[in-house]
């Protein structure tokens, strides 16, 4: 009986070690950021955007729409639709430290809520886009997109890391 228990604990600790390593590999693949320069990630994402509808926005616009200051972050790329009747926008932020992630995510949630209120009742297709918005935090990079191509942009962002 004792030998059985010994074997069980002995085997299980190695099983758990293998599972732990597998988990680390998975999170490296799907949740990690990278140490690539922000410009490289920005270039990869911005070149994939539908340039007909989206326009690069200034730091002032980022401040107005998200309530955040561009200078507080390591990098900000913000594209929004040139038409006021469109909900499309794509945001990429690189934070200096992980403690900034929560404030950016809070700002994104607030932005989504505000945009939903803007379009609710008369533009259901825009509300649908907002509800299907894509958000992703990979290390110090935060990605956010409201677009019919949001999934495609998200994939490009993930591959650019």
């Amino acid at each position, binding site marked *: 009986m004792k030998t059985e228990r*010994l074997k069980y*604990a002995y085997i*299980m600790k190695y099983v758990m070690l293998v599972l*732990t390593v597998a988990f*680390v590999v998975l*999170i490296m693949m799907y949740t990690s*950021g990278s140490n690539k320069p922000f410009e490289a990630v920005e270039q990869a994402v911005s070149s994939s955007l539908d340039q007909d509808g989206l326009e690069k926005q200034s730091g002032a616009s980022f401040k107005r729409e998200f309530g955040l200051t561009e200078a507080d972050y390591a990098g900000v790329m913000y594209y929004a639709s040139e038409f006021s009747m469109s909900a499309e926008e794509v945001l990429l932020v690189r934070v200096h430290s*992980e403690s900034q992630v*929560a404030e950016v995510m809070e700002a994104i949630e607030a932005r989504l809520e505000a945009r939903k209120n803007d379009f609710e009742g008369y533009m259901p297709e825009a509300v649908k886009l907002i509800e299907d918005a894509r958000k992703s935090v990979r*290390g110090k990079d935060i990605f956010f997109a409201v677009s019919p191509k949001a999934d495609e942009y998200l994939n490009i962002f993930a591959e650019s890391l």
Partner: protein
Amino acid sequence: MLFSSITFLFLFLPVVLAVYYLVPGRGKNIFLLIASLFFYAWGEPVYVVLMILSIVLNYFCGRDIWEKKDDPRRAKLSMAFAVTVNVLILGFFKYYGFLIDTINAIFSVDIPYRELALPIGISFYTFQAVSYIVDIYREKAEPQKNILYFALYISMFPQLIAGPIVRYVDVEAQLRHRQLSVRRLGQGSMFFIIGLAKKVIIANTAGAVFEQISQMPAASLSVLTAWVGAFSYAFQIYFDFSGYSDMAIGLGKMFGFEFKKNFDYPYVSKSITEFWRRWHISLSTWFREYVYIPLGGNRCSVSRNIFNLMVVWTLTGMWHGAAWNFIAWGVYYGVILVLEKYVWGEPLDRLPSAVRHIYTVVLVLVGWVFFFSPSLGYALRYLGAMVGAGAGIVDANGAFFLFTHWLLYVVAVLGSSAMGMRLINMVIRMVRNRKAKTAVAAVIYMGIFVISIAFLVTDTFNPFLYFRF
């Protein structure tokens, strides 16, 4: 989830407490475990899996060591395996980016790597797991048979995120049986409220002053501004971290646990040796038990003892973060502790109390400069500003911060010593009648709680400083 958040204070805690008191017998542990996992998953939905894996891994490692206790060599190998795996997991998350950055910088190469967020609390729960493993190997404790109880020991939400680091031997009996009472619930609430006030009233306000000063170039700081900045940070980190520990101890009491104190008014110390007996006591105890003593402690030659001290303090610095400034901070304390032990400890003891206190405060403030600086270069420039190499002796900025926050500093000084609590207790004891005394205490603590909430709702997101360790 932060203890100092509206969600925690008005939703999570009341619900968990109410259900916990209603659940009978052994169900309490299971419920507390579920609540703890939910608490962790709220902020770390991915890394909760890592913590669960670590729990199960250490559970089986503990059992494996115990099964081999009749064969010391195999038991030692099994213990070494478990400790190595824990250290490797912690080291991977905490230092691998730092290691590659260092290689890139030294060899002028550009090795790309995947950045991973540091799982919150990993340094704390890993150290708890190691203490469990080593104590089983030393036969100071038996392995926990019930995996849910062991999971509760590792993941208990009051101390999961930022300690105190609770040794298994200290709570082993409490995991099986603990007393709940209205008195203990009341005591726990008082601890919690004091901790909350320390965090949201003092630490966050001092932190706001420090943040403004730290954003100025070091060369533009006058001596006054630089010292106000250093004092503000010293108050911020003390009230932030000891506030968290008080809240953890208070929550523990509410759930029937007794955790040892983690701070004992460190700023009243009259030597650095004394300071480290009073600051982050659970971490110092851990390093003493599991690193310093196994290395030989002080029962060895002077040179070996100096080596042991330097190893422990370098590791203490590294534990705080993957950056050179933390390593410098650890080495700085190692050197001072060696000097106090072998060079000026005895002469220091003969100096007047006030001089020893000033000596300690100055050295601690210099230490905090290394600690808060983003780089060693900045630390040296900031230290330069403290001795006049910045922008003169006094300027309008320093005077402004001092005069607009004088009340904060008075409260912080009182709260850094036993005087603050003595004042509160003095007011309560002014009433002779026992019931009236309870009523006065309730009014005072409710008042502190209401003021803390007022600060909380007007504050921005302010996580605890020790979350990042």
